[in-house]
């Protein structure tokens, strides 16, 4: 199913009272769930036809593209260029720069690191997907310490 069809499908379902929708055929499986103020779409290829990649555990969460399972050491990290405090949000009330699963463009800010009132917006140096956030908000970080585990796209 291409993105246009998927969009129409979401639209059709949103116009009804349906809160959960599931569809499966030979090539793909689509699950749409709706809550009171959020909706999300999960779109994955069934494992039955996944490329017979050398399976490594743990498997990443299903992603939009039926990418072969990536072994852990293929992930890269975004590291802190300075010693300081790690902040996931530009200000305490603001939403976080990124969440797990977000696709980030090269040059996009992913967090702040503050040292002595110098605020450094850390940017992704390449397009990637955020796999794991390795530090708690407001945690102290060392020079060169990994902040995010990412998958280069």
């Amino acid at each position, binding site marked *: 199913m291409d993105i246009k069809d998927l969009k129409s499908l979401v639209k059709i379902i949103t116009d009804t009272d349906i809160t959960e929708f599931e569809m499966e055929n030979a090539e793909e499986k689509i699950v749409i769930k709706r809550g009171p103020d959020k909706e999300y779409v999960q779109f994955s290829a069934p494992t039955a036809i996944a490329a017979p990649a050398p399976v490594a555990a743990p498997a990443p969460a299903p992603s939009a593209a039926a990418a072969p399972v990536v072994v852990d050491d293929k992930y890269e990290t975004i*590291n802190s*260029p*300075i*010693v*300081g*405090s790690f902040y996931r949000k*530009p*200000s*305490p*009330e*603001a939403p976080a720069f990124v969440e797990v699963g977000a696709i980030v463009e090269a040059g996009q800010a992913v967090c702040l690191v*503050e*040292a*002595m*009132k*110098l*605020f*450094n*917006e850390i*940017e992704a*140096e390449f397009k990637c997907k955020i796999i794991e956030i390795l530090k*708690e908000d*407001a*945690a*102290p970080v060392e*020079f060169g310490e990994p902040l995010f585990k990412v998958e280069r796209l």
Partner: protein
Amino acid sequence: MMKPAPRETILSLFSQTPDGFVSGELISAELGISRTAVWKHIRNLRQAGYRIEAIPSRGYQLLQSPDILMPEAIQAGLACRRIGGQVRCFETTDSTNLQACRLGDEGAPEGLVVIADRQSSGKGRMGRHWESPGGVNLYASILLRPPIPPFEAPRLTFLSAVAVCRAINRCTGLQPTVKWPNDVLLNGAKVAGLLNEMSSETDRVHYVVLGIGVNLNMRQEQFPAELRYPATSLALASGQPVSRLEFTRVLLRETDILYLRYLEEGSPPILAAWTELCDLVGKLVHADCNQLQIEGTMIGLAEDGALLVRTATGKIESVYAGDVRPA
């Protein structure tokens, strides 16, 4: 260096004249323009608030400059080597730091200064608001492109703190103190706030923006009721209004001197100057570092600028971010 604007040339001629008079003939020769064009520039300066008198056979006399912040007036005869080659002044902007970062992203040169008469969303630490009314204070951001690795950049924080203290002392005679890492206080009340931002790669600094807010002529009723710290202005503390233009020029010169020294000798002289201005050395302090509360005696700065605190157990803790107050 860009060719100075006609206004800047005229203002610098006024500043160089021994008897206060500058002839129309001299201006027209300096600028290579007609006497009528000179008269138009004088008229524009008058409209901008300069009091200029024309006396037959003697020339023009500058009686009073308005206390508005304009590039020509700031740059005229400034004699800085690195800072102030480009000055951008805004009547209102969201935040001079945001403007400077935008211009930095677009490739603006080192030394760019962004100044606003008022800020609509002046920034403090952690998204806090910096009260920025028009006409009374200085809100400035200075763009630097130091050839240093990113991990050294936080030390520049101390540079602007020392520069602000020196400018305050020169303009008012008052003796400010610093609070780690870079608040400036007069009798324990905050008079300036500094907030720096950096754009970098892992091993290279693109630019650092030194954000500097100084309360110059702010009146008591202009301070918001709820402030985290007591605050003051130079005028409140000294009982006299301060020329914003003069303060700005002095501050840019002091920053320029310190920055040149930093480029030549690194951070030790800057950190030493800062330590001399700090009245908490040897005293009991409390550091609120988000997840961690540290209490102990402040023993000074580490060579990377971290605050060193000796706790009750004798352990020396390094503080890199947080609020530090007397315990």
